[in-house]
């Protein structure tokens, strides 16, 4: 597993190194036809097929800006109905909603409002993570794990104004329920009352053709049957667009995941097809008018 994570990390560094100079987002064929070479990875409806199974997800992201405070941006990312079902075995994972909300300000600070309010500089953006309605089950088991809710405070060291870079960490609170699918009974509750930490690095190339994501979550988690136990989950993933059909990208995906609960390492490879997406605003498919 360490080797796989190292490989993904190395590829991430390569991605960073090639992150680059401004490039045109519109390609032109020899006959004058135009096509998109940049893509918006955060606003799309996609389906994925691969070694892990078949699934899909709806992703939306947008910013909220303020006319009277141009240095302040709320970056909002939403992911809905992110599901995967294995093809040849009874394995399923899905989440109803997952969101990240980061408040980017040029001058991060703490305000202590006691007496005369005081402002102290902070080198990070603050935000939050929320997930509701996650369901997972694995083959050869009647147990289903329901992630009722998970929240985290996020401190983003990258302080990026856009979505292309995130280096965030923060404490996590979550509540998960294990249920027996056959008997329809709840078997165990798992709670992390901010006794876990999450760290997330996400890097996206400016042209939206490559994406690397690494997330690790670990700490002490309370189980209603077994009491407090250490818990660690790590996941790394890469996505690289290799093809576009009608300007809708098709990407190769790679990933590796580990968790102590099952002591299981899962690697995956697949293809992601974007059914609908928001056209990158830098793409100009209509020819410019002559003056």
């Amino acid at each position, binding site marked *: 597993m360490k080797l796989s994570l190292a490989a993904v990390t190395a590829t991430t560094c390569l991605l960073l190194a090639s992150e680059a100079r401004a490039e045109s987002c519109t390609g032109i064929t020899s006959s004058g036809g135009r096509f998109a070479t940049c893509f918006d990875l955060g606003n799309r409806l996609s389906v994925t097929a691969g070694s892990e199974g078949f699934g899909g997800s709806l992703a939306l992201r947008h910013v909220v800006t303020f006319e009277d405070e141009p240095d302040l941006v709320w970056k909002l990312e939403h992911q809905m109905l992110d599901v995967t079902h294995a093809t040849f075995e009874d394995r399923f994972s899905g989440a109803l909603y997952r969101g990240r909300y980061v408040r980017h300000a040029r001058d991060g600070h703490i305000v202590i409002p006691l007496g005369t*309010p005081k402002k102290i500089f902070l080198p990070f953006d603050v935000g939050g993570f929320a997930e509701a309605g996650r369901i997972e089950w694995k083959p050869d088991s009647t147990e289903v794990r329901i992630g009722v809710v998970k929240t985290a405070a996020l401190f983003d060291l990258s302080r990026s104004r856009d979505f292309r870079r995130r280096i965030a960490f923060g404490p996590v609170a979550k509540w998960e329920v294990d249920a027996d699918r056959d008997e329809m009974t709840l078997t165990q509750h798992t*709670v992390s009352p901010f006794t876990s930490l999450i760290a997330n690095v996400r890097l996206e190339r400016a042209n939206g053709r490559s994406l690397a994501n690494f997330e690790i979550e670990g700490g002490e988690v309370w189980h209603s049957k077994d009491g407090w136990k250490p818990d660690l989950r790590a996941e790394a993933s890469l996505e690289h667009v290799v093809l576009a059909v009608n300007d809708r990208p098709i990407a190769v995906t790679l990933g590796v995941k580990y968790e102590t609960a099952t002591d299981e390492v899962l690697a995956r490879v697949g293809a992601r097809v974007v059914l609908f997406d928001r056209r990158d605003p830098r793409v100009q498919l209509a020819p410019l008018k002559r003056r």
Partner: protein
Amino acid sequence: MTRSLTLALVAMGIGLPRLAAADSGGLLPAMSPDKPVICGRDTEGKVWRIQCDAAAKVCIYAANEELSSSGRRTKPLERARDCEIDQDFDRKKLEASGYSFVQGRVDAPYGWLRDERGRILQVNFDLRKRIFFGAAYTPQKILDNPLESKRTSVDFGLLSFNKLSDGATPTMHRIRLVHGEVHVEPFSAEITIAHWDVSRRFLDPLLRLTTFVGQPQRHDLHLNLGLWTEAGGLEIHPSQGGHSTIWKHATLQGTLDLWQSPDLNSFVRVRSGIGLEGQHTDGTGYRSALVPSSAFEIDAQVDDDGFHNVKFEFTHEAPRYFVPFQNSVEGSSQRFATRLKAKLSYEAIILAINDQPLSIKLAAGGEKRDDIFGVPDQWAFVADAGLRFSLWAPPRDPTPRPAGP
């Protein structure tokens, strides 16, 4: 910084003469956001904001940029009004006519404060509009491993949103999505997926009483009715031999506001209605019930800046089960149960990180119920203290408060 500012002012063509004394709060006087402001350029080309009060014969001046700790101008002011350069500004003429110039701070919009370096900070928070998550603890701890705590709890709210529809009969909509709390050791949880309630202030009174003893007088009796609904509630409690899970499918209640604050953010009310729920208890199985319920509620923002918030809730629920059940080994079967709950909580903002408030929450509550197998029918009390971090929490609505009785 003050020394640097003084040196800069010496070089000003508009010749601002001296530094003003700080006001009683330790900050320089601020310009009024309701009065006009002009900009003037000094001999070095630097722009200053100036606001003159003709009645007091005082002009407040401040740099038109944010300043570093050394007094160097760093970047444009945030949340500042547009300011046009006034080429006709004549300091000497103003001084000759009796005006004095004092150093001050540029004005800030409602809910914000500007410090002496021109930096903006939020000082007014609406905790009714936020995403929040928090953790709370009771004093009992296992000392050899501080991570293992007893009666630890987390609470969360993925969206709280209040919307006031202003008008002749102002109406406040309160929406809450995925609110709840989870306790560990022993485990218990409460979560509500969706909540919507609405308070209304009616223009016309239900009853007008006129008294004719002495001078005729009119007394209006208003009946501010509203609606309270919840859907997708879940409660999980420890029971004898396992857990008891209560699915509160939907609840509908009518409300009567006994008192409303002018902005409808705070209220005292009673509510009553009916709900449908299902309960699964390990060992005794599943049963459904219709649940008549009523409650007395106080929800108050104590100060105008939203720093102090108090909530009290006393609820009575009386499930009527479709099939009889036993709530103890020796007890007889019954169709009726009673749940009584009281909870008082106080939340106060202690600091803000990037203008996102961190608050302390103190809560105490009690519960008495006979609907869970093996749980004794007596009052049980709990108190906890914790921290909450809120996202969004904009300044409270500065719009004029709705008129009404």
